[in-house]
């Protein structure tokens, strides 16, 4: 579908549509069926090379967990520096555009690290997390966060910020901080559940 069909805000509209569809799905009966259908997939994950490695060598799993945490720290740095700048609380003597675009590169590297190590860990404990609601909340939060970051926040920041309502920028900054702290908190909670 050509993006222009939806006007200048095509990506924002698409992101909102995805969120609405997800919400509708979550509240409907289809959710349970899909969940049941996914069990074989999660069982298969444990038989993959990652799954076997993660289950066999505790030290490897623990080291990957540590790298996941390092990715978390880096993500936190990128998010807090950029959003802190948009909120006018840190780096106030540096242009907003500069801070945000440079932090975005750090963010991307952190996200790649988190997804790679996250997938590895998920394979090792696939059936356990399949039955954990908090794991699904984390994935929902992660999907919402990534859609927001790449399809809402970045396109807005790519404009001339002088023309953007300052309250919109502040609201985006607060939303971004909240979503990533929520994803991190649900992530930690996976570990508490058995």
């Amino acid at each position, binding site marked *: 579908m050509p993006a222009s069909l939806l006007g200048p805000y095509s990506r924002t509209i698409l992101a909102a549509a995805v969120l609405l569809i997800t919400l509708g799905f979550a509240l409907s009966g289809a959710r349970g069926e899909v969940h049941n259908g996914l069990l074989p997939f999660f069982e298969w994950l444990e038989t993959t090379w990652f799954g076997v490695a993660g289950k066999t060598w*505790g*030290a490897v799993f*623990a*080291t990957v*967990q*540590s790298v996941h*945490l*390092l990715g*978390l*720290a*880096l*993500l*936190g*740095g*990128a*998010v*807090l*520096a950029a959003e*802190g700048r948009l909120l006018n609380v*840190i*780096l*106030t*003597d*540096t242009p907003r555009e*500069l*801070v945000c675009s*440079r*932090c975005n*590169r*750090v963010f991307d590297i952190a996200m790649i690290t988190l997804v790679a190590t996250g997938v590895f860990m998920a394979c090792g404990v696939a059936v356990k997390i399949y039955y954990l609601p908090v794991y699904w909340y984390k994935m929902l939060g992660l999907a919402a966060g990534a859609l927001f970051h790449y399809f809402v926040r970045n396109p807005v920041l790519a404009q001339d910020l002088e023309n953007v309502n300052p309250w919109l920028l502040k609201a985006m900054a607060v939303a971004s901080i909240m979503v*990533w*702290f929520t994803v*991190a*908190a649900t992530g*930690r*909670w996976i570990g*508490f559940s058995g």
Partner: protein
Amino acid sequence: MFNQLIHNIAIWLDDTRWSTMLHESYYMYNWVESTHVLTLMVSLGMLFLIDLRMLGLALPDVPASTIARRLNLPMLVGFTVMVVTGLLLFYAVPVRSSQSIWMRIKLVLMLGLLINAVLFHRRMSEAGSGWDAQPRAPRNLRLGAMFSLAGWSVVVTCGRFIAYDWFDCQYMDPGLMSSLAGCIEGQTRF
């Protein structure tokens, strides 16, 4: 001697009412631990940006001294929360934590990293600002940044490893490892 002294202090802490309450409260303990983990985003998040800036790997075209100065305060706030929540985690499970080899490496390393940070700070003010706009800092600052990045990564790994029981005193025979971990022969509380 040293290990016995630590063990005695740990037993004493373990017998206090608040330690038991914290340890037995599912939500309280897990929230303290979650706060310890989430605050990595503030403390190490800021620290990583500063160190990576010195190496020219993050925000290379923002003046290095601006990054170091402006991110210092949030970083220190983060570290303060880390220390408070860390002490609480230790207090909740004092005997086992005090006899964890990972906890011990973590604490010694953090001491070294503290010294490194003070030296870094001093070198930073001595270096003037002639290089501020360069992507990479002078060599001695880069070395400090590399040591900091590597050291804190090991601290995180040790922190994560505390939860595993590979080297717990119950499962180790007397020897070098067990005395480094602080195990006491014939101890009855773990």
